[in-house]
């Protein structure tokens, strides 16, 4: 950013501009200024200014998930959305909630809980993580299997384009096919197409009861057998997860029904598993992984999840990795505390395995700042079309430049 632009920025946005500190760097790249808008019009003005002066803008919610993607190729303005944290409308009877993008997921869940409702995503992030950030990253937790991803919860959004245009897509109702579903497209776009300013989500009713059942197994092969039996049966768990245990593995299932129906499901599960495997009520396992320098996330067709996990564990020997396998919908999340070159090796060996199975491997974490050459995303077959989309929404590439797939 040249001196003139910087001076003008300070002059025009005087009371919302601050100097960044070291901790504001994005994977080692320091922004020049932080701007903390209080409303959508200010965001529009900032983006229009940035577009005119070709300044790179990095949107940030609570900063809970900034170590995702590559380091930005340039960073001028850190657009801090944390002041945009108002719940605009919550209509329990409609089961929809509209909030500014900087609203924390915790605030949403608390508001919804008053009416025995919830937003059906449970990504492994702090409560302070913002819904805008969660939508932009498009991450999911164990609820993915029953309720779908973030994409499936979003009903509409207001957003600001790179040139400052304020626009809306979708609506505030649960069913709507008027116009392209841009709100859904923005989920998982890592803030590279537009800045989300307001989001409407659908909510779900809390089930009467929710219980977890654990099926221990000594080996991963045995866990795979258990999972296959369950998936081929008429049981309907809300989640199927595999986690490590002291003496092997546990397949953890959640059932969300009336008490009688849970009982019925557990009885059927025990019958299905026979004498070979036990099934016990357990506390909800802790699916939260320790934060380490690196996190590897694998997507795979569900039936391939455990075979790939097996490979992950073999190849990563003797490194220690923490993991959880979402076998119900086909994902493995890992947290890796290892030297950067070891992670490069691991990625190099595992990524082809995942891609051959029709999946993908994505690397994230603060450790990426030491690995500028590593492509965190891997190759994406439709990258040219994605680039084309990017070029129409953000022709100067000022939104999160260089952070997304294929250098977008």
């Amino acid at each position, binding site marked *: 950013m040249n001196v003139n632009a910087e001076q003008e920025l300070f002059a025009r946005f005087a009371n919302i501009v601050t100097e960044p500190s070291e901790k504001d760097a994005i994977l080692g790249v320091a922004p020049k200024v932080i701007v903390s808008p209080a409303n959508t019009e200010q965001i529009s003005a900032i983006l229009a200014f940035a577009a005119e002066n070709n300044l790179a803008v990095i949107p940030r919610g609570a900063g809970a998930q900034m170590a995702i993607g590559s380091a930005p190729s340039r960073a001028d303005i850190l657009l801090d959305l944390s002041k945009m944290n108002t719940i605009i409308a919550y209509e*329990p*009877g*409609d*089961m929809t909630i509209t909030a500014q993008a900087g609203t924390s997921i915790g605030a949403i869940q608390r508001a919804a809980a008053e009416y025995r409702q919830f937003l059906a995503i449970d990504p492994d992030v702090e409560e302070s993580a913002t819904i805008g950030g969660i939508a932009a990253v*498009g991450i*999911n937790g164990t609820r993915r299997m029953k309720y*779908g*991803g973030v*994409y*499936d919860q979003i009903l509409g959004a207001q*957003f600001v*384009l790179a040139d400052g245009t304020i*626009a*809306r897509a979708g*609506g*505030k*109702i*649960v*069913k*709507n*096919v*008027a*116009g*392209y*579903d*841009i709100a859904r*497209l923005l*989920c*998982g*776009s890592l803030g590279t197409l537009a800045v989300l300013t307001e989001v409407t989500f659908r909510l779900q*009713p809390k089930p009467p009861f929710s219980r977890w059942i654990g099926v221990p197994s000594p080996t991963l092969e045995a866990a795979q057998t258990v999972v*296959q039996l369950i998936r*081929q049966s008429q049981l*309907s768990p809300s989640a199927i997860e595999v986690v490590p245990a002291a003496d092997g593995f546990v397949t953890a299932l959640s059932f969300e*029904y*009336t008490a*009688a*129906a849970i*009982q*019925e499901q557990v009885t059927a599960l025990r019958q299905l598993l026979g004498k070979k495997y036990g099934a016990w009520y357990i506390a909800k396992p802790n699916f939260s992984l320790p934060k380490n320098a690196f996190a590897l996330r694998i*997507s795979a*067709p569900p*039936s391939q999840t455990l075979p790939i996990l097996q490979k992950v564990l073999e190849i990563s020997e003797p490194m220690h990795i923490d993991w959880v396998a979402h076998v119900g919908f*086909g*994902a493995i999340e890992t947290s890796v505390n290892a030297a950067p070159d070891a992670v490069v090796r691991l990625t190099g060996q595992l990524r082809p395995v995942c891609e051959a199975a*029709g*999946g*993908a491997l*994505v690397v994230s974490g603060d450790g990426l700042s030491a690995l500028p050459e590593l492509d965190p*995303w*891997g190759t*994406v077959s*439709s990258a*040219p*079309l*994605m680039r*084309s*989309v990017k070029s*129409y929404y953000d022709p100067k590439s000022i939104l999160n430049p260089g952070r997304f*797939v294929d250098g977008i």
Partner: protein
Amino acid sequence: MIASEIIHLFESAVGPMRVITHPAERKAFASDALLHYHEPPELVVFPETTEQISSIVKICNTHHIPFTPRGSGTGLSGGATPSPESVVIATAKMRKIHRIDIANRLAVVDPGVINSDITKAVASAGYFYAPDPSSQSVSTIGGNVAENAGGIHCFKYGFTVNHILGAQIVLGNGDIVEVGGEAMDMPGYNLLSVIVGSEGTLGIVTCVTVRLTAQPQSIVTALVPFASMESAGAAVSAIIAAGIVPAAIELMDQLTLQVCENTIHAGYPENAAAILLVELDGPQAEVEARIADVAKICRNYEALNWKIATLPAERALLWKGRKAAFAALGQLGAHLFLHDGVVPRTKLPEALKRLTDVGRRSGLWIATVLHAGDGNLHPVVLYNDDQEALAEQVAADILTMCVELGGSITGEHGVGLDKREFMNVMFTENDMAAHQKLRLAFDPLGISNPGKIYPAPNMCGEGAKKYKQHPLEQNGTITRL
């Protein structure tokens, strides 16, 4: 007119037998199920492979000829009505189910595969394809994807968009692109999210990977008559507020239920002012407990009666009545105009009241069926030859009312040609410009089904003559959102 040399190019791409040029034959492709609009295409081509579609589109691209994808032509918004001077690309010869993968609960199918054929192919393994538009026995998966089709079981199971894992699409320049896949949450933009529901304007879908859903263990359908639409609507709200997620929850007014009963004899009580059809599915104990809750709630809202069906044949009969609504109303001899607006569920009572007012004011009969759980209204307006203008005014009133109440002009039938002039009731110019950047990215020349969804500034008045008048703005009822 497409020059004969260019026709030859199409013929050599798919074979002469797969190109229709004769005017009389072409006429059959001039409309979809919304017969108000007709525009005979220049040509109709019947490709059999993705590569052939790519070649066809490349010819269109080189010669700037618009094309309109077509499935079974059951669309209700003019989506498959040919764009002026266009080539129709029909998927009728692409009906193969390529692969069924039960372990991963997916199937890979051609775009011309009929929705219910997927379920037929996997039923014996204990699965089904969940989105169930009433047209499912004839509509294609490509058309369902393009319209993001819904159905009576979408309240619980979600719409088409929630059941598509991947697609292959031929872009406006003929490039073949794969989006999504067999694994979820792949890196990159979620392009599938916008391809679904794009009404053929982002290219033509040539292969689809659909999700399969396990059949529920137990299903119960309840038929509940009420003395008024209001009390039935209030019961719907109460059921949902109790945290119950019915597989389907449908409401019919008296006119509709009487007409359906006369044709199908499904056992609907004709003296009721409204009937609610509620279906619950899932584990047996769950269904038993929840159906008892539903019964209690309905009693609290003064239900006139309570009847449940558990046997497949009984349940099918109850649904047959509902699914025949449109056809049965058609037998009354009037013209029908079927609407598809949505209101927030809590606004249903008000919407129903205003709908009655609209009917009274206009003097037209309005029969209403609704996907009550999602607030998706299907008022069917009946009118005679000389009442067309009145029917248009009523259409405008209904759509505006939905938007005023915080809803949408379409819940599942799409905008197409029919409602594009109403898009600006929901969206600002800026909104629509932002949406349409997407179209440029997929189809810079704008040859893929042009003129659909968004009011096209350069084609004003060409396709849709109907709503040019804009009665909304004239009478000052429009409020932009």
